[in-house]
């Protein structure tokens, strides 16, 4: 177990190095040099050269790369080209909104997906199964921004017309500062994000559950005289959950950097918006920082999934 974790951590560092180097390389190949973007189209050549020198971009490529690596692995992500503030603190400012967004949505889609998945597996071809199949199809085929706009229209505009104010648009508010406002701000983003993903989990759970329920050990459980509830949940769901939880860990890790649309529609200043603006402005250090952060989340989530796996399934040995 210990050796497994060490090995995986080393592997994780390797992944982070590869990811950051690739992004670093790609950004240096970009057709419009950063200094030109910052200086603007009408700047003189001297200004551009000065900016170039100030950013250290006139140094040899390998030297730049080396100082980038050194700084990164000591936790120094550099300064934003655009705002001149520390990348690390930019990220730290934006992280809570995104973490809460992903976490809240994750609870919704995980619980929702498993519940509907189990119900439609045990009552396969029943009404609920059919209804949930329709929702799954909607969830899978509707574009994220459309989904978000629909929710916004329904919950904000329509409910607002009826005098119900579930959703309050505006900036992210810390749950410690104002719990009610926090919930009012987050409820729609949560729903919008969860609705996109819940379909996948419903299908995953339903499929996994159907497979498990036809296993011999489920027949054994019934033959033992256990209640149907116990057969379905204690024996069926327990075994069916493993692939779902694996997927959950992977999705959670990967989602941190891909909430752009949801954040944009609901005006949350999170990591997603940070990514968006820094790409538009060519803010290389910020792009690199966010990429590294995302990769870090993916690596850690995968590690947790693998360790969790060995607790979920005694047949899995970590070595």
């Amino acid at each position: 177990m210990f050796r497994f974790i060490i090995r995986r951590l080393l592997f994780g560092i390797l992944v982070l190095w590869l990811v950051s180097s690739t992004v670093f390389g790609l950004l240096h190949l970009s057709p419009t040099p950063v200094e030109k973007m910052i200086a603007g189209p009408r700047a003189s050549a001297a200004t551009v050269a000065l900016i170039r020198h100030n950013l250290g971009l006139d140094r040899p490529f390998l030297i730049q790369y080396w100082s980038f690596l050194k700084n990164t692995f000591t936790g120094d992500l550099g300064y934003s080209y655009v705002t001149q503030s520390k990348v690390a603190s930019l990220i730290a400012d934006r992280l809570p909104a995104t973490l809460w967004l992903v976490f809240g949505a994750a609870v919704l889609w995980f619980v929702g997906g498993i519940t509907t998945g189990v119900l439609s597996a045990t009552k396969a071809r029943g009404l609920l199964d059919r209804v949930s199949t329709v929702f799954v199809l909607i969830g899978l085929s509707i574009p994220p921004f459309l989904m978000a706009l629909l929710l916004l229209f329904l919950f904000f505009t329509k409910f607002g017309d009826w005098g119900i104010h579930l959703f309050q648009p505006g900036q992210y508010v810390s749950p410690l500062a104002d719990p009610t406002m926090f919930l009012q701000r987050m409820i729609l983003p949560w729903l919008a994000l969860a609705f996109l993903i819940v379909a996948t989990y419903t299908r995953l759970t339903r499929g996994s559950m159907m497979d498990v329920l036809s296993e011999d050990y489920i027949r054994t459980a019934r033959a033992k005289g256990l209640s149907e509830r116990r057969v379905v949940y204690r024996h069926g769901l327990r075994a069916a959950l493993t692939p779902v939880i694996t997927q959950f860990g992977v999705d959670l890790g990967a989602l941190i950097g891909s909430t752009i649309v949801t954040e944009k529609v609901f005006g949350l200043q999170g990591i997603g918006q940070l990514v968006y603006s820094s790409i538009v402005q060519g803010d290389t250090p910020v792009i690199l920082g966010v990429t590294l952060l995302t990769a870090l989340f993916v690596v850690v989530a995968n590690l947790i999934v693998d360790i969790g796996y060995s607790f979920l399934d005694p047949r899995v040995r970590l070595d």
Partner: protein
Amino acid sequence: MSLLEVTDLKVSFNTSDGVVQAVRGVTFSIDRGQTLGIVGESGSGKSVSTQTLMGLTPGAKVGGQALFEGQDLLTMTPDQLRRIRGSQISMIFQDPLSSLHPLYKVGWQIVEMIKAHEPGVSKAAARKRAIELLGMVGIPQPDRRVDDFPHQFSGGMRQRAMIAMALALNPKLIIADEPTTALDATVQAQILDLMLRLQREFDTALIMITHDLGVIADLADDVLVMYAGKPVEHTDRRTLYYRPHHPYTAGLLRSIPSGSGGRNDRLVPIPGQPPSLISPPSGCSFHPRCAYTMDRCVVEEPPLRPVADRHRSACWLPDEAVGLSAEVENLRGMAVDQGRKEASA
């Protein structure tokens, strides 16, 4: 009154290809302490008929009657049936590798069953019983192995654990569905021995399902031979082995691998394939594969009738045509000629 009396059991499944008539009228009974062997090729309906008794065939259309101590298993409420499963009737399945839940400890799975039927029993007491049971079925160091997961057990040990579980509540009837098919020959013999010993010890009734007549050569009292969802011969073990009437039974006897109770050294499989259960053959279901098919066999279905005392067979051959000797073969041949002549006249 017998412990279990099954009368004209019929089971069918609606599938997209048509109605599968998996069991088409099975009748048998079994008493306490008795062993009934059910034999037949793959697909003859052995598993479906017994699992239906326990309500383990979801989606099946079921007909007939199955009186267990006078109560019809087929019309019970799910909850009544649930209380009988495991405590009065328990089952052992073919594949011990997949029959135990892979994510729970073996002992836990036995304890769970005890507690399902005797909620008053303390966890510690149930666990103690699980350890005793594992010891009884020959698991070494049961107090340690009780906390093993199924994958830490060998195939034979898992089947022993299944037997321990089946015995946990001292049921009146155990249905063993090919309990040794997935095991290798030595382990097979050990498991059969164990079952036989425990059955005698507890005076349990045992239904032993197999497609290998060799398996029940030593342990069945009566044997029911099934073909295409129907019983074709039903008699005591000795008669079945030495004086079989139905050509299908004779075929099964010839296909017993040598060394496992058969008398022939050569292994002669029955030619042809089991029939479709969606549209079974007309007349005698066995006629497309039978060496003695007469015209009558194709059009008229032979009833399961007595051919001797306590010996019933569903075949149009004369009652005297029993046994495997050359003489009897002649007799059968003559009967066939006779039958063909009559038909053409």
